[in-house]
């Protein structure tokens, strides 16, 4: 793991990051509650504990840059500017949801904000992001596209096919692996042979590094470097070491079967919100203020979602083709 020289961060930027992470945290807590209350349907994957990856990486993007996400994607959406009320309405399956209630948590999309989609087939966003980068290049734009995926996706062959294309064609794409140590119940070491995904990427001609995914400043610093490189035709992969504090999806306990309480608690001590507050010396008052703000926005989002109508039957056969 590269130990970055931590960049000096101004108080304002740090506060903004803290605010976004707090928003994501509260949002996901509310989503989980929504699931328990029967308002969020099917299943829900929350990434509580992993907020720094999304916020550090996406915070360094321009508005015209784009993001593709995976099953654990609320953080990416919110960090990219998707309004929480529209996202919550999507989880509630309502008409005002970003995807009109047709996608749900696993397929939230907001093209206007460059949040190009959420793909629930593990690894599946990776070649799509590569293609978006190809389009950017063909159109002569220097926007980058970022694909997020988990440690479970690093054994999908399409990642390596895509790395090869990205390197070969010098595409403005960044591959972000959120390594939270597990794919459902399977530990990384039981699934991934060899020195790891960063070394694998290098073997395909894509520069790569492994960083501390709990430290939003470290992520941000790496992001800025990689984005600059990607704009110039040097695709990159970054593996962010992180951890999900809760179970894989609704119903899966945080610990007990495949990992023990001690391990979870160890990681919880590196809660990205706390890490940032300490590093940036935010102070308890500011943190509390930002948290209250986040809580209020999420409360409003839940209210908005609850008020939004369910789609009428006519919506069923709309949106299949234009």
């Amino acid at each position, binding site marked *: 793991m590269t130990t970055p020289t931590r960049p000096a961060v101004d108080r304002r930027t740090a506060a903004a990051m803290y605010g976004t992470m707090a928003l994501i945290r509260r949002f996901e807590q509310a989503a989980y509650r929504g699931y328990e209350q029967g308002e969020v349907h099917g299943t829900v994957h929350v990434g509580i504990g992993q907020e720094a990856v999304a916020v550090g990486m996406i915070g360094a993007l321009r508005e015209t840059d784009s993001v593709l996400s995976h099953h654990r994607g609320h953080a990416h959406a919110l960090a990219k500017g998707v309004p929480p009320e529209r996202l919550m309405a999507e989880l509630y399956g309502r008409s005002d949801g970003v995807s009109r209630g047709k996608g749900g948590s*696993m397929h939230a999309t907001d093209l206007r904000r460059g949040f190009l989609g959420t793909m629930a087939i593990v690894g599946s966003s990776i070649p799509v992001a590569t293609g978006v980068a190809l389009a950017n290049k063909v159109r002569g734009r220097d926007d980058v596209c970022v694909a997020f995926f988990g440690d479970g996706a690093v054994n999908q062959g399409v990642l390596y096919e895509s790395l090869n294309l990205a390197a070969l064609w010098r595409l403005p794409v960044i591959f972000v692996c959120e390594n939270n140590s597990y794919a*459902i*119940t*399977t530990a990384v070491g039981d699934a991934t042979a060899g020195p790891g995904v960063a070394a694998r990427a290098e073997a395909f001609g894509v520069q790569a590094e492994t960083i501390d995914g709990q430290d939003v400043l470290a992520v941000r610093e790496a992001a800025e470097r990689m984005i600059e490189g990607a704009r110039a035709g040097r695709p990159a992969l970054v593996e962010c070491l992180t951890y999900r504090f809760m179970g894989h999806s609704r119903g899966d306990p945080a610990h007990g079967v495949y990992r023990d309480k001690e391990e979870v608690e160890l990681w919880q001590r590196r809660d990205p919100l706390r890490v940032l507050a300490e590093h940036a010396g935010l102070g308890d008052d500011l943190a509390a203020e930002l948290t209250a703000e986040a809580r209020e926005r999420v409360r409003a989002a839940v209210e908005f979602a609850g008020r939004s109508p369910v789609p009428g039957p006519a919506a069923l056969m709309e949106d299949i083709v234009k």
Partner: protein
Amino acid sequence: MTTTTPAAATAPDAAPGAAQPATATFAAALCAAQHDAMRLDETIVLLGQDVRAGFPFGATKGLVDVFGPDRVVNTPISEAATMGCGVGAALGGIRPVVEVDFAGFLLLGLDQLVNNGAKLRYMSGGQASVPLVVRVGQGPLGSFAAQHSQTQHAYLAGIPGLTVLAPATAQQAYDAMRWALVQDDPVVLLEDMRLYRRGGPLTRGPVPGSVTSTVHRPGTDLTILTFGHGVVTALQAAQEVAARGIDVEVLGLDSLNPLDVAGVARSVRRTGRVLCLADDPPLFGTAATLSLVATTEAHDVLRAPVLSLGGRAVPTPYTPGLEALVYPTPGAAAEAITTLMKWTD
């Protein structure tokens, strides 16, 4: 794969010591079948994501405790290689069971299943045996949205060289799995995800001699041809119209390839009215084939044209209210029955 020796034999949740006949869920019946077969055949090995934990439906739960991690093998998320590995392992003389939790993921392994698994025997002029069993969760599960809600019955049943089974009850799930595990060629078990938690009687019996079709309810007025979860829908519809004096026969096609054409003919020639019921859309779906078979076998005695009832041609929406409009309901089936009974050309 670790080289740990199997833990002392303890039974899976599902069943072993249970008195016979017992009751089990569809998922537990699959687990029991794998358990019973693995006891008899040391070469059976399970391959799949989180199969040791039995995630997500419990169909392999507890088996690692009985048979150890060398026979209940967690795979990385590598559907293509896992399926290819299953084909190779079968070719190499063992019996792999490859688990694919959701039908949408099967597409990643389809090349290996279709281009190799289904064809190696033929391409080798009969030399190669690929006794591979593939388990695939099919259908909607309830607001899992478009990538996690698919059916592939029609496509898979059209691949020469693949045997395709679609059990409807716990007992059939057990029997299908036991039967699949003594075949010499690849068998795909299409498991409707809505069935996993349904209970039913289960006799952990001997391996059945064949898997063909089942009359779930005998009747004289009309035949519903269906399979998998369609049987549940059909039985409810039959019950509904029984109150109006209509006597429906429900014929479940436990095997889609080969298809029990004789069984279909027997039923539809007797009743003279046919409703084909499936979850995929009628055009290019399973109902079209059932309809073709029924028409071909009974056109001279049909009292009404064969009706097909399938799902809507739409990617499955997330929101429950819309999803409910996609798949045929007992009410819609009852309506179709009414139409057929009233038919005069």
